[in-house]
């Protein structure tokens, strides 16, 4: 009886056109927190992760990094490849592939794409190619890249380079990025309403078979609570970045949470050049004082796992033998006393807010725990760009924060975290040697061993405050037939949000 007025009002509103817009069954609506910068994979400069998530539906690369088996490389637009010598890469291309505008895919398109990336010196795509010097068309379905020095990560990097057609030059970068993104991918572009949504529809001529669903709509909703509300109200089908506060609620009823495991590591690098952090006992004490199990269970609600090393499961270099530090405040106090810090000390911790799951809460909780062994933490919320810059320039005090998405190759991450000048001479020398060796080792197995050694060294020397690595939670309508699967992505994330049937 009490429901009746509500129902009547709903009907009235629907008739007046004021109700919520209905989602068609063959269209999936995905809500992101940001809007892509551009749909042009060869754009001159800025690159955003979310731009890539949308571009990925419309473009293919030569190689796919995919993951029924984590980080394995699969053929995509290239059927096979070989290294005639360490500086040369030869790709044999798939035949019979067509771009969305009907043009056939040939080696010329690959050459154009690579030439563009080489020319756009201020772009991330340029960094993917590393020391690549030139690209050469051998025949319409064979293309060759030449690098100045051997560059093992090239293969997995090239999985992030979307191939654009020769028609790119006629269309021009502006139009290509806004209205006419022409690729070979499973979806083609329909429309882009700035600030609101992008609509794609299935490419029925896709070489890997027409995908389902027939249409994709990406909506941009900045506030996480609003995104969750949209999912609950039926306005969207999938949301990324659900609010931590509502994870439990979203896992019940007609919505559910899909957890993608081991998506990123959360780093809390320590500036060892600062007293008393140069003493490994102090650093170990910091690690022993934090109850990471409870944090993972309560603040992350199980969507994160305690860790004791910089590499996480699935990464080249992860060592399952390395266990997280125990929670032992008594031992921590003892170590502090041993190192001459029985009275505790003050420590700055630069943190981000809202950049990764529960970042602020975890920092607050850990600070309180550290306070209990005498380490008085001063939390300094810092915005993302500055925190990244301060790490690279080694201009931060105490501890800082960072994160890195799971990636096929660990060299960039290793350089990012272990080459800034925050290490004592002894630590720095060893790190330089390890990182250098890992970056130039061509053999994958040997490379993995070197990274494992780095991981163990970083653990033993307690170079970070180790707390956790993170799963990614994606909330969706319970009856939506979507499973995540690992595939190409920007920033080394190895998963799609939306898989096409391939």
């Amino acid at each position, binding site marked *: 009886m009490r429901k009746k007025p*509500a129902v009547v009002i709903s009907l009235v509103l629907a008739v007046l056109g004021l109700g*919520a817009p209905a989602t068609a069954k063959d269209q999936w609506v995905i809500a992101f927190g940001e809007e892509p910068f551009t749909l042009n994979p060869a754009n001159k400069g*800025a690159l955003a992760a979310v731009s890539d998530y949308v571009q990925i539906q419309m473009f293919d690369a030569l190689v796919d990094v995919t993951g029924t088996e984590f980080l394995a490389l699969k053929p995509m637009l290239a059927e096979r490849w070989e290294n005639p010598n360490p500086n040369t890469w030869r790709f044999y291309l798939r035949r019979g592939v067509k771009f969305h505008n009907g043009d056939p895919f040939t080696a010329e398109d690959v050459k154009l794409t690579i030439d563009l990336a080489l020319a756009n010196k*201020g772009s991330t795509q340029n960094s993917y190619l590393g020391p690549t010097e030139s690209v050469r068309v051998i025949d319409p379905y064979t293309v060759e890249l030449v690098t100045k020095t051997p560059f093992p990560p090239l293969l997995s990097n090239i999985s992030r380079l979307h191939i654009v057609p020769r028609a790119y030059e006629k269309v021009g970068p502006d139009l290509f990025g*806004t209205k006419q993104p022409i690729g070979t991918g499973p979806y083609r572009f329909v429309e882009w309403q700035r600030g609101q949504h992008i609509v794609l529809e299935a490419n029925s001529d896709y070489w890997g078979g027409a995908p389902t669903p027939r249409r994709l709509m990406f909506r941009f*909703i900045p506030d996480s609570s*609003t995104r969750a509300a949209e999912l609950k109200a039926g306005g969207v089908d999938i949301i990324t970045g659900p609010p931590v506060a509502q994870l439990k609620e979203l896992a019940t009823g007609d919505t559910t949470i899909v957890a993608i495991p081991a998506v990123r590591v959360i780093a809390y690098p320590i500036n060892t050049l600062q007293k008393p952090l140069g003493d490994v006992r102090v650093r170990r004490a910091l690690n022993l004082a934090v109850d990471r199990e409870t944090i993972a269970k309560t603040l992350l609600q199980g969507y994160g796992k305690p860790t004791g090393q910089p590499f996480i499961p699935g990464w080249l270099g992860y060592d399952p033998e390395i266990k997280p530090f125990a929670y032992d405040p008594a031992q921590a106090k003892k170590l502090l006393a041993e190192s001459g810090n029985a009275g505790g000390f003050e420590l700055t911790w630069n943190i981000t807010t809202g950049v990764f799951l529960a970042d602020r809460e975890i920092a607050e909780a850990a600070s309180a725990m550290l306070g209990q062994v005498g380490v008085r933490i001063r939390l300094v919320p810092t915005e993302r760009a500055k925190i990244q810059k301060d790490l690279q320039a080694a201009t931060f005090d105490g501890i800082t924060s960072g994160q890195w998405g799971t990636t096929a190759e660990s060299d960039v991450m290793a350089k990012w975290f272990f080459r800034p000048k925050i290490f004592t001479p002894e630590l720095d020398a060893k790190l330089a040697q390890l990182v250098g060796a890992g970056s130039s080792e061509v053999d994958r197995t040997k490379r993995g061993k070197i990274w494992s050694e780095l991981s163990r060294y970083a653990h033993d020397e307690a170079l970070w405050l180790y707390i956790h690595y993170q799963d990614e939670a994606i909330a969706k309508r319970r009856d939506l037939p979507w499973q995540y699967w690992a595939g190409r992505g920007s*920033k080394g994330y190895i998963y799609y949000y939306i898989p096409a049937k391939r």
Partner: protein
Amino acid sequence: MRRYVIGRLVQAALALLGVTCVAFLLVSLSGDPAFILLTPEAGESQRAAFREMYGLDRPLAVQYASYVGHVARGDFGRSFAFDRPALTVVLERVPATLELAVAAVVLAIAFGVPAGIAAAIRPGSWLDRAVMTIVLLGQSVPTFWLGLLMIRILAVDLRWLPVSGRGTWGQLVMPATALALWLAALLARITRSEMLESMAQDYVRTARAKGLPERGVTIRHAMANALLPIVTLIGLQIGTLLGGAVITETVFAWPGLGTLVFDAILRKDYPVVLAVVELVAAGFIVINMSLDLLYGYLDPRLRRATA
């Protein structure tokens, strides 16, 4: 009169220049865009090339002079993030912002002014107290909280309205209401106090003494007087409405200037930030200058006061 107008125009131009200067200083001192716009994998050489591409490695004074020169010709540069003309990026969002602002103003006037009148007719009555309490409550609730509460109750639990976005009338209701609330409360208070003021004036009492019906007296004479301050107030709030609706836009995913400039500031996309600031500032200055000129025309005494 002509000298007055020219004087105001010159001042307006100087004001605009001042805004540009401050905005430019703030954004350029606030940090390096390369770090945030290129993913961490991009190496230092890519970042250096990025900076060079956009002329960020030049001295500040040179950048400023170059910027002003370009703006004078209508060129606001290219957005760092989108690699499109900054002006285009900004203008695309204007219709959404205007739609929300106009809807909010309309709602605020429609609810605030009658509430103020109702309260003023019988000061001290229960109606007066009730209205003013609601008004005070309206000014005490943070917009974002109200917005999220509305979403939960009206959209998720009751499903009467869509949650967010723009396109249908339904999607306009909640954001416009959330944005209108504080303005409506303000208008109610101003209307009430202006009305009370007017009603105590001699000429109103005279009209009443002449036997004109109370309601006619109230509405016509008193409102005419209240009009000017009300319009002034709305003019002053334009800046807040246009740019400061960030919160409403964020909560309701409304694609307006507020979120655009907020994101641009965090991303250090200076051309977009500067373009929005110019646009909003120019709009504000133009509107208020017009209002000032209008007063000056209507009441010569004010010319000296506001010059």
